[in-house]
């Protein structure tokens, strides 16, 4: 080998070594593990106990279904809210803009454990403020943590609360990059504010919104902390168990590393498929 290359690889060696040990090897190792029954000593090759189980395991389909429900409901709701918030924030009528921007962004800054604990208290059946408010307007108290639809709504509310402001700030930056004179021209042509929003603002915002959607989809695919802490490990009875949580439960509660590895690979394949879909949609946008 040429001396130059040798020197270059010499300098690269520390990184390559770490990359091989902490990235390449775990990827290979978990792939091998995904074909092994790891619940016997020593581990044996038995893909039926991992891949075979995956396709007939109702708990896996349940976790997949829950992740998809969150994806399909939460992401559009949050992006719509974020867009409305951004437009309002951008309004020239608004005073104390800095304060509002900070307030919308603040949920992301709050620690996850702290916000989960506060949500658990707020939605407490007997003593939570949400149920007290519902009762005061004549709606019966909701058992937020023990009924599946309620728990799922709670999860969606929590994630939306946390991330809507963050997305609103990103969309706001997009709004501010739209030149004022476009609106001025439209106003001179007597185009109503609503029509301006639909025909000017939204099309010009599209790349930014697509970016937010992609980020949110990735976030939802990896959703773990909220169902772990707020709905107590995907409760009730797996009603809010996401794929990430299902993997964790198999790996670190049932100590079934082989099965957990096959779940991890399935999640990776799903992520690739969804990314391809995103790229396809993004291409069409041009």
């Amino acid at each position, binding site marked *: 080998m040429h001396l130059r290359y040798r020197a270059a690889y010499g300098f690269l060696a520390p990184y390559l070594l770490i990359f091989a040990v902490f990235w390449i090897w775990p990827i290979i190792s978990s792939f091998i593990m995904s074909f092994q029954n790891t619940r016997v000593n020593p581990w044996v090759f038995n893909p039926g106990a991992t891949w075979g189980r995956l396709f007939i395991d109702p708990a896996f389909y349940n976790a997949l279904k829950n992740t998809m429900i969150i994806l399909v409901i939460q992401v559009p709701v949050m992006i719509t809210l974020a867009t409305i918030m951004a437009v309002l924030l951008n309004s020239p009528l608004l005073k104390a803009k800095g304060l509002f921007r900070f307030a919308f962004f603040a949920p992301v800054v709050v620690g996850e454990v702290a916000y989960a604990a506060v949500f658990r208290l707020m939605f407490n059946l007997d003593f939570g403020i949400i149920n007290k408010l519902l009762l005061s307007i004549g709606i019966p108290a909701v058992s937020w943590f023990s009924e599946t639809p309620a728990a799922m709504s709670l999860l969606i509310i929590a994630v939306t609360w946390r991330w809507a402001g963050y997305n609103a700030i990103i969309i706001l930056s997009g709004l501010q990059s739209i030149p004022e004179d476009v609106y001025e021209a439209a106003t001179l042509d007597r185009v109503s504010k609503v029509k301006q929003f639909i025909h000017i603002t939204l099309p010009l915002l599209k790349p930014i919104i697509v970016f937010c959607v992609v980020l949110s989809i990735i976030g939802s695919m990896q959703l773990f902390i909220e169902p772990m802490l707020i709905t107590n490990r995907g409760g*009730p009875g797996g009603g809010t168990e996401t794929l990430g949580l299902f993997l964790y439960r198999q790996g670190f509660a049932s100590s079934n590393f082989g099965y957990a590895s096959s779940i991890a690979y399935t999640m990776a394949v799903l992520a690739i498929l969804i990314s391809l879909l995103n790229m396809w949609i993004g291409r069409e946008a041009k």
Partner: protein
Amino acid sequence: MRLSFFGATTLAAMLSINSVSAFADTKEITIWSWNIAAASLKTTLEGFNKLNPDIKVIVEDLGNQQVYDKTLALCAAGGEDLPDIVQFENFEAEMFWNRFPDCFTNLKELGYTSEIQAKFPDFKRVELEVGDVAYAMPWDSGPVAVFYRRDFYEKAGVDPATIKTWDDFIAAGKKVATANPGVVMAQADFNGDSEWFRMISNEQACGFFSGDGQSITINEPGCVSALDKIKQMKDAGILTAGNWNEKLQSSAGGTVASQLYGAWYEGSIRSNIPALSGKWGVYLMPSITSDGVHAANIGGSALAISNGSKNKEAAWTYLNYALGSDEAQISMLKGFGLVPSLLSSVKQPFVEETQPYWGGQKVWSDILATLPKIVPSRGTAFQSDADGIYKAVQTKYFAGGYPDAKAALDDAAQQIAVATGLPIAQ
């Protein structure tokens, strides 16, 4: 310290050298435990340090789930960084010995002789020993009882002595709720646990797995009647959802009239709600039929010594004192209501005493009398799988996803068979 050392006479200097060397001999051992179990271990330290002044015991209260999660992760990583002693719930323990046979020490090598082993009942030992290896020493058991608010029951005209069946319990629950607005009869953790099912099915001599741990029995009649009864209670509105913390909040806030739990809940109520002293009482759990056993077990723990411990001898000395002496066992029972597994401790005079917190009731002699009637129940190495599946099935059943309890548990049995590879008992 330093100043006095330099300014001291030769004698004092020698003394302080002595104390330095004594300090060097002091062994430190750390224990991972949770809730009142951790608090009760602390009550044994005074007595222990009188006998062993050179062993310093540090009890860390991590919370139940954290101890399990961290121990599992560390065992999977080779067992480094574990504390010297770890608490296990009996029914979850087998998975550790099964998957990580080298993570914990064989206590027999440290002095856990067959004479000491014989001081504990078999049902507590079966999950802790594999062949000739004893991985953990039994600690407490959890004979189930109903803890109830005397004032709420009285106001409703309900005499707990007449509650013999779960149907009686439902009828009483409706009266209690009517007489005490805003109060519910009892709470179950429908969000994250299966405790009511495990208690009532154990009472009906049924469990997730057979006694030998080799087959699945969750769809047998005892379990079916347990699930059926729980749904009836939920539908009647006398059983609402509450997790561990919410149960304590409701108990303290006066919005619940009874809690069904293992005897260790005595300590949780007494230490968390001192203001309600005298208002609580205890009665035996109802059964499906009035001639049922009215006895079950839930929870109950054991202590194991990690293989990575640098002070195994000291850890064993502590284990043998805390779990193997009447003095320590009674101090934990007195302090936090942990029911000793040690057979000799349940005959100690304290058990016969009236308890002021419980309105002068002799709660311990009442609860401990159920011990001989408890049917052993095996957690097995697949406890976590089965429990996860059961909880999902229970939620689906409550939401109307199955025609009846039998169909629900047949489905649970099928799923457990897929997850574990074990056969369903015929």
